[in-house]
């Protein structure tokens, strides 16, 4: 192949692509665009769609009530995007939303996508509120645009570790984590807190986020006879794990984070869910003002709440409250108002600290009793 010929074929290719571009559609002035990003394809789609639905419910409600900024009636529009839970796609999607002129973004779902995307939102100067990214690193980058409405791994892991030792009386503890940013982060914080409270870690085993067979690690744990097994991970693994734990005759309580505290876990674990304890940041939904109402509205529209829908719902409300205070949707003005947030969300009261984390957020512990999650207690 000679270079001349190569140049010609490359040129014709390039021409074909650049000609295929079409014009952009311009929007009306009174529509305010908000982005929502979560994985909508791949193994985590059920949780991703849940986030988007939570945000959409809030947007629909606000539109129905009517929103007025700067003396002008405005309408919110939610642009849902799919980041496939993949860091590379996350940055492309983030840029796409910035191009589309969103004034804020609710998302992303995973810490691994939230962190690379946060740089793009920061460069563009638009606020990002993640409903579910819990890695400590996300808000530790020094970006004034990064917020989250959920307790981070350190906050939740600490509460869980102390609770396990002091309230559940666990002495010998086995830990399993799923080697995702979420599971590993939570398990490490749990381990620190549990050890500090006087618990003994007898085993630390690992799995991954598409495993279904935990017999091997559970058998190995059984040999160390712990009285509590902590799992840092999500319900698709937690459900079968609870079943296999019982089946192997392992006499230990299963404890988990917010990844387990949901309806899907109950479904997947079946009768073996009984007695499992899990935490969830914030106060119990049903004891929050507007909580039961949220549940009813959400379930009427989208079915059972998976995990983080209430947080996505709250994130939109936090954002709109800041817009109202600023009387503008201008990202710079909204950013100035966000630190002053003080809102009663369906997931709990929301205030931010200097980094953008929720400050002093409560963590509530639940136990499965008679086939339903029952509140054990709320710890600060």
């Amino acid at each position, binding site marked *: 192949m000679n270079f001349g010929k190569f140049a010609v074929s490359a040129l014709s290719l390039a021409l074909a692509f650049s000609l295929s571009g079409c014009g952009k559609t311009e929007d009306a002035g009174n529509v305010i665009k908000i982005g929502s990003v979560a994985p909508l*394809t791949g193994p985590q*789609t059920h949780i991703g769609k849940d986030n988007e639905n939570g945000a959409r419910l809030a947007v629909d409600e606000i539109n129905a009530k009517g929103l007025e900024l700067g003396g002008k009636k405005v309408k919110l529009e939610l642009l849902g995007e799919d980041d496939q839970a993949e860091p590379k796609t996350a940055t492309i999607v983030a840029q796409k939303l910035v191009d589309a002129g969103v004034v804020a973004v609710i998302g992303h779902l995973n810490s691994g996508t939230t962190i690379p995307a946060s740089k793009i939102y920061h460069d563009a100067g638009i606020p990002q509120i993640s409903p579910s990214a819990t890695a400590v690193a996300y808000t530790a980058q020094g970006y004034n645009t990064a917020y989250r409405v959920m307790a981070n791994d350190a906050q939740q892991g600490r509460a869980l570790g102390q609770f396990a030792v002091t309230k559940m009386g666990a002495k010998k503890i086995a830990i399993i984590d799923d080697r995702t940013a979420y599971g590993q982060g939570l398990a490490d914080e749990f381990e620190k807190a549990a050890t500090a409270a006087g618990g003994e870690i007898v085993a630390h085993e690992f799995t991954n986020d*598409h495993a279904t*067979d935990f017999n091997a690690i559970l*058998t190995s744990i059984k040999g160390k006879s712990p009285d509590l097994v902590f799992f840092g991970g999500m319900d698709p693994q937690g*459900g079968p794990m609870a079943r296999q734990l019982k089946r192997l005759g392992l006499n230990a309580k299963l404890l988990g984070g917010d990844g387990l505290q949901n309806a899907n876990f109950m479904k997947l674990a079946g009768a073996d869910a009984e007695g499992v304890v899990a935490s969830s940041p914030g106060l119990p939904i049903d004891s929050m003002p507007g909580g039961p109402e949220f549940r009813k509205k959400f379930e009427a529209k989208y079915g059972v709440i998976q995990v983080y829908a209430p947080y996505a719902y709250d994130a939109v409300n936090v954002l709109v409250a800041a817009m109202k205070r600023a009387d503008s949707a201008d990202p710079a003005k909204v950013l100035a108002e966000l630190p002053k947030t003080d809102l009663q969300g369906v997931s709990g009261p929301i205030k931010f600290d200097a980094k953008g984390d929720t400050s002093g957020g409560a963590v509530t512990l639940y136990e499965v009793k008679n086939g339903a999650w029952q509140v054990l207690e709320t710890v600060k």
Partner: protein
Amino acid sequence: MDIFIQQLVNGLVLGSIYALVALGYTMVYGILELINFAHGEVTMIGAMVALTVIGVLMGAAPDLPGVVVVLAGILVAIPACMALAFAIEKIAYRPLRKAPRLAPLITAIGVSIILQNLAMLIWGRQYISFPALLPVARFHFLGASISLLQIVIVVLALVIMAGLWLLVEKSRLGRAMRATAQSREVAQLMGVNVDRVISATFIIGAAIAAIAGVMVSAYYGLAHYYMGFMLGLKAFSAAVLGGIGNIAGAMLGGLLLGVIEALGAGYIGDITGGFLGSHYQDVFAFFVLIGVLVFRPSGLLGERVANRA
């Protein structure tokens, strides 16, 4: 000791599941030398169809015994998967039989993506739980706990493998299959309808996949449109480990891979003094696989492939 026995049991059950899926890979590979990437997805479709039937039956006739409901699910899932595999072969693979070998590999990947996303459209993004229909009797054997379902899975895998072996070695169709695998042209000259034999291979593999799919979802209590991918990959590795194209090899490879994974996860931490933990379970499995292939490049029971002159 009881822990070790339990780990062996864990590994054998997991291995039987791998083996059931691996049979489908190995049959298709043996005859076409095609890695049928979509096979894992056929397994998933089998589980999904069965779950749908089970759901309908439980709604319509709640008094039926659980075993009957599950059997009905399997009986619907088998023809569904057979039809699917027939269609896949006819539409996506047959036109490419003379193409370079990588082209059908790419279509196989494409078909796999299509099936996953179709399943997502039909059955949703949710994890679907398998209702508690089967008896949960457990037995204790040398300190290990074994459930009835686990025994059923292992026995079923052995029976199916034996049946398949008989089919390939003793029946007319089996002879045609072996002839086709040797040389498509010569088989054709001998009056073998090669197209029909290849279709039959896909269909039989799919029927086994349907059974495997239902077993997997009953055992772990869940099904998901994404479940086929990892399962398929592991099963394919098992088939290669045992010697791809060889039916007993698929069984051996599957069982071996299952046991290696279980023992690896259980003991790797103790062996390495805590340096490596159970997160290196897959690494362990892959190292064994690589080790076997490096020293026996055609797998454990595969025939040695002479260098082509």
